[in-house]
């Protein structure tokens, strides 16, 4: 499921349509961005509950631990446990981060302006991407029906569809795909 057909009103970042066009897959990555609080940490980052310090520690690439309170600039433990309760029905600090808004892996694409199937020149990786969401990952993990929600412009995938598309090679670098306009409909021949 993509973004809304018209620009939305989320003051944090307005929802936008998934822009129609022909694109090329560039790469798949565990995406991080400071734009969204929960996406400062990559999915799967190791976490350690520190109740005596009212903090949560997260694993740094160096092997040391960082303070989530410091990263977010506020007390985090109550909120993180509450979010985990909403998603998985247990109020606890999970062993790994399951809150990144872009899920475990985001598939990035670009518009191939010079049609050479290589990201080069003035081409930029799009801010819109394929990804799952924490809600859908939790639903899938718990065996519940997965309900897709409209995005801010990205294309939300069900975890099972993400896996299937990976398995058939749809997200290999250089793969071409088309985002159709909202009013366009698939026709069976």
């Amino acid at each position: 499921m993509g973004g809304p057909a018209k620009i939305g009103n989320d003051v944090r970042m307005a929802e936008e349509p998934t822009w129609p066009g022909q694109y090329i897959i560039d790469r798949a990555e565990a995406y991080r961005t400071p734009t969204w609080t929960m996406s400062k940490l990559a999915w799967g980052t190791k976490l350690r509950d520190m109740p005596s310090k009212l903090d949560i520690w997260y694993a740094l690439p160096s092997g040391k631990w960082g303070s989530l309170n410091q990263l977010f600039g506020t007390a985090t433990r109550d909120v993180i446990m509450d979010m985990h309760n909403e998603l998985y029905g247990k109020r606890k600090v999970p062993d790994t981060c399951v809150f990144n808004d872009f899920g475990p892996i985001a598939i990035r694409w670009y518009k191939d302006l010079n049609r050479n199937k290589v990201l080069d020149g003035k081409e930029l990786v799009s801010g819109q991407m394929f990804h799952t969401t924490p809600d859908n990952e939790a639903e899938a993990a718990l065996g519940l029906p997965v309900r897709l929600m409209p995005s801010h412009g990205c294309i939300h995938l069900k975890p099972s569809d993400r896996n299937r598309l990976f398995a058939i090679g749809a997200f290999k670098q250089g793969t071409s795909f088309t985002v159709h306009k909202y009013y366009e409909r698939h026709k069976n021949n």
Partner: protein
Amino acid sequence: MNVIKIISSRTRVLLLMGIYFSASGGAIANSVFISPLGEKVDSELDSISVSLNSENGWLLGGYKEEEDGNNVPYISLVPIDGAKARYWPLTEGYASQLFEREGESYVLLSTGKTLKIESMEISLADFQFKPNSLLVTDEPELIACTKIGWAKLSSSTIASCYRVDGAWDIDVYWTRMDVPPKVCGGDLKVLVSSDRQRKWEVLVLDQKTGKQLSSKKVDKPEVAASICQL
């Protein structure tokens, strides 16, 4: 005196940095925390998030951890006179702040409901906040601001500041959790942002009416900057 400031920041940090856990092999672990006055307070809570030195004793908000790792939110009152502590499990939300008003002690829950502690008993109080509120000041009126959701798909996309008695309520795009709204020199100051957090502005609001008294454009504040200094 800004009681909320003390509860939310100073006491919260000082008290809880002093928590340590006693050895326990049972399902219920006892913890002891050191108050700012240096006294040790025994508690069955496994972790304590908020605390208030009330007239009746130490009022605590925290959790008991179950064997499966689930943390059950609790309110606890540890009497001054050494009487047995009381524990009340919460069925919804968690204790986000504790405050006093007109001699009574209250618990603000993350759901927006408030609980009143009276004569060692707990009951639902009349004050109704919005969910995920931060109580900014409790005198002369209760003024709170809602916290915007941390998740991208959160339903809480608009933050607001309001007087709990309903006298005023305004939308303000308050996003920096490390720079919370505060009362400075008698007025409410709120840091807001626009244009995908590229522009920053400090709004000064009248506590009584919510009317915007002034606004000032500022550079992106440092982490944990004091709103009163901006």
